[in-house]
Structure formats: C-alpha cells, structure tokens
C-alpha cells in the first residue's frame, strides 16, 4: 500500500492538471462515471485480488484514492480507479471498430505491406551479399594472378589488401588523437590552443 500511496502523491498534481486540461473540472464530487462503471463489465485490472464492487464512488479512485470507503470493505487500488476513470470517461474516444469488409480491407493492406517490406529487405540483403561475393572473387582473381617480369606472384593482391589511406591521406584514426582514458578530461576542449 505504501507504494500505492507514493505513486498517488507523485501522480496527483499531474492528474489534477490533466483533469483540468482535458475534462470539465469536477470541483469536489466524483464525475458522472459511476453509473457507467456500474453497468459495464469491462475489467482492465490485472490484479485479481481487488474486487470491484459497483457501489457509488466505486471507481472514484481519482478522487478518493486509497482512503477506505464509508461502507467499509477493502481499499481499492487507486491505479485501477484511475484507469477505469479515464478509459470509461465519456470524453475518451471510443475504441476503433471496423465493419467486416473494412476489417478485411485493412487486413489485405496490412498483409501486402508486410510482404512488400519483407521483399525489400530480402532484396537489399541479396544485393549486399552479391557485392561482397564479387569483391571476394575479384581479390581471389588478383591473388592467383601471375605478376609480370621478376615480380612475385600475388603482388597485386597484397597491394590491394593494404590499408593505406583509409583514415584519409596521411591521417590517423581518431582514437589516437588523445590518450584513451576511462573518463572525459577535466577540460573538455582547449579553446585557447594554437599551433
């Protein structure tokens, strides 16, 4: 219960602001959701021990929170009350429902989209693989090539495998620009530095 109350103290200003923003401000009483809550059977709670008794103010967790109701009974989880309050409020938009044909059309489009996406991904992968393979075979070709004159075999392959200039011409990897440390330096950037 301590965790509930801490959550509640954390959330209450937020909720108050949200309520004043989104819904018509209910000054002191619990808004009109009670009748709606009584009639509905939709249970969004995941905790089985809280039995929701549809008395007046049963869902008024937003207002009453974890204080015990006057009739007695176990205190309700305020989170459940909050969820019910906002999900079943008349200003909450209704859930999206499709007609039969519309659902089928939606499904068709969804399937086509998944198919197209998968095909694109597979084509990209295939292209990458093809490029790698062609690079590999080119290198293999170089390795087996006889060099002209007194030059030794596979000379061109060795030259191709050299990693010269991969950091720019005459460059060094950025890792060597500063001594590698576990933490950033005390002075992040020396602005006054000149050559």
């Amino acid at each position, binding site marked *: 219960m301590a965790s509930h109350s801490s959550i509640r103290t954390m959330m209450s200003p937020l909720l108050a602001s949200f309520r004043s923003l989104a819904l018509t401000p209910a000054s002191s009483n619990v808004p009109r959701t009670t009748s709606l809550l009584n009639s509905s059977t939709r249970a969004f709670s995941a905790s089985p021990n809280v039995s929701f008794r549809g008395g007046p103010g049963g869902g008024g967790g937003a207002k009453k929170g974890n204080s015990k109701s006057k009739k007695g009974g176990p205190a309700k989880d305020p989170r459940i009350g909050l969820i019910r309050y906002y999900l079943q409020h008349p200003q909450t938009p209704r859930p999206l429902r499709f007609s039969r044909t519309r659902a*089928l059309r939606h499904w068709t489009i969804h*399937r*086509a989209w998944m198919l197209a996406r998968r095909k694109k991904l597979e084509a990209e992968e295939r292209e990458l693989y093809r490029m790698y393979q062609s690079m590999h075979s080119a290198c293999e070709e170089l390795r087996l090539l006889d060099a002209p004159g007194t030059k030794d075999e596979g000379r061109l392959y060795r030259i191709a495998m050299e990693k010269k200039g991969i950091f720019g011409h005459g460059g060094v990897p950025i890792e060597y620009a500063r001594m590698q440390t576990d933490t950033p330096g005390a002075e992040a950037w020396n602005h006054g530095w000149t050559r």
Partner: protein
Amino acid sequence: MSTSQKAVRPLARCLRSLQSQRQSANNFRTLSSSARCNVEAVVDSTPEKPIFDPETVTSIKGEKALMKSGILPIGSRRRRAAIKSSDNIPFEQLPYLCFQEARKVLQEDREEKLKLIATERLRISNMLARDPSTFKGGVLEKETKLSSMRRYLEWLKIQADINDPLIKKRFEDGEGDMNKPIYRYLADRKWREYQRKIIVQRIEQFGIVPDFLPHFEPTAEVQLAFKNRNVQPGEYIDSRVSEVAPRLKVQVFNKGERLVTVVVIDGDVPDAEKDRFGTRSHFIATDIPLSPTDTSIPLSKVTKEQLVQPWLPPFAQKGSPYHRLAVFVLEQQPGQPKVEAEKWAERDNFFLKSFIGKTRMTPIGFNMFRATWDDGTAGVMERASIEGADIEFKRKKVVALKPKQKARGWEARHASDKYKSLRR
C-alpha cells in the same frame, strides 16, 4: 411524396439495383445523377404489389409485411439502408486506392508463387523419372529428396493463397472447401489455437497418457455429441443421455481418404477383489471411412461388418469415483488385415496399448467424458441387462496402528466448540 411516386418506388428501386449492377461491372463511378433518367420513363406503367427484400427493406410497413410472411429482415435498419443506397460492388473491386494497390502487390506475389509451384512440380517429375542408382544414397536418398520436395510444394501451395482476403472471408464463414490445402491449413491453425490446447490439457490432467497410452499427440479434431447434447471434453454426462451411442465429428487436416477405428474405453472400472481399477471397452468399430470433407461418424449407425463391439452404456456404480470414458480415433494402415470381431469380443481388461500394438494403428484423435452414479444409472443398467446396480462401493476403514494420542498443549486448551473456527 405523392401517391404515384410512392406506388412506383419499389419498381424504381428494382430498376436502380439492376442498373447499378451493370454500372459496377463497368466502372466505379457511383455518384452520377444523370443515369437515373430512364427511371422516369416507366413512371406511368401500372403499379404492382411491392415485393420487399429482407436485405434492403427499411420502412416499418415493409418490415411488418415481411415478418407477416415469415421472413425476418436481415441486420439493422441502418445496415439495410446502407445496402440499399450502395451499389453491389464485389469486394475485390471496391474503389479504394490503397486497397487496390495492396491487391496488386498480393497478386504479383501469387503469380510468383504459382511459377515456383510449376517449377517444383517439374523438378519432382524429373526426380521421379531418375533411376535411384544414380543417387549416392540409392533409393533412400531419392525418397528423402522427394518427400522434402513434396513438403516444399505443399508449403508453396499454402503460401500462394494465404494472403487472399476472400479465402480468409470464406474460411471465417465456414464455407471453405476442405479438399483444398489452404482451408485445411487454416482449419488446423484455428484448431491448434484453442481446441487442441483443451484436449491436450485433458490428456494431462486426467492422466490419459500414462493410463491409456504411453504417448499421444492428437492430430485430428474430435467432437462428441449425444443426440443434440454437445459434450465439452471431460464433462460429466448423465447416464440416461449416454445410453445411446454418440455421434462423432472427426476433422482430419491432411488430405486423402482413410479408414479409422473408433474405440471407447472406460478406464476406471473398480475391481474390489484385487483392490484396483481396471479397464473396459464400451465400443469398437473398424473400417470407418474418413476424409477431410466427410467428417461425421454416427456411432449408432455403423454397419454390422464394421462393428466389433456394440455400444455398452457407460455406468458407474454407487460409491465408485468418476469414470473416465475415453473416445479414441485410430487411423488404420492402408491395406491392413481386418480386425476380427471374435478375437476382440472380450470387454473387460481391454488395453488400448496392446490393441494398437497388435493391429498396428496410430491414434489420431481423442475426446472424453465422465460418468458418475446418478438417478438414471440403475435404470440404464437394467435396460442394458448389466448386473450390479445394487452394489455400493465403500471405502475400507483403515485402522491406525498407533493408538490415538490424547490432545495436549494448545489443542487441549482449545478443545471446546468455542474455538471451532480456529480448528483445521
């Protein structure tokens, strides 16, 4: 609205629907108002008695007239009005841009799959024509390769149709043709989602697997019904209901005709002399033809040649714990010898494992119900001329070897009824 207009309205509607059908076949333009001109041409023809369509009737008068003639209007009035005012464009021609583009993508994919199917068929026929000696592994390798190619072909067949919305719709409406692989695949998937899980749970919780069979994986759906009483797996069935043989609905998900054997076994027959439980077979019938399309097996209508043991009504004597009545569907090997009725006439101590071992069948489907002693059991037993309705089983009183100890401590102090609620 003038009377003449009122009178001619159904006729005009009739014409309009005709026209809209023609229109939808040609193009998707539904908003044109000019095409109505030929409606006026027939206004002065003689009005006839209005015929109301249950799909499109919206007026209260029309609904009443329909209901008087015994036809209920379909759906809500709002839905009917929507249907009336719309052209009956077939689903695949609905003029939504994204939907049509999606259909194009799916159709393209289907064409590819059909091409793959054609090449795979060709490859299989080539493989069949090849001499097995040309393979390194001989006949075995050829068979393995062929079976894997066939599996791939089946997969391709399913993949070609799985994205079709109309197939999905037809399957959901229960109009799928079970001869086609795609519908069998969808039905299998649906069965595995829920019904099979229930059956597997029953197999576990009622100890079917060690008690009746050493291992068992159901692959066919079996539904059980006594007359019009559908049986949920593991339900208690009144003995009067189960007096007549049930009707089975067995759905298999692989293609082809086959012969099956149906066995019903009671696994909890009390044996007081040996102080244990035995088994008893209540029904055996063999050589029952079964295919994905023809699924119904009424056990009361099996022929005399098929019958090995006729239906014995399940009964549980008074005091015995519930009896598990297991219904097994066993698939026979093609061309296997017939099960001899004389050999399997003994009902008591029927062991399914030895039956399967001797007849070389494979269990494919399972369902079960339970029986207990109830008001009708004595009558059922009398009608079936089974003895022992007057027997009542009682637990044997086990005398403790140690003398009972006097209560001491907390128990002695709380011995009075005042603390009854505290006692366990």
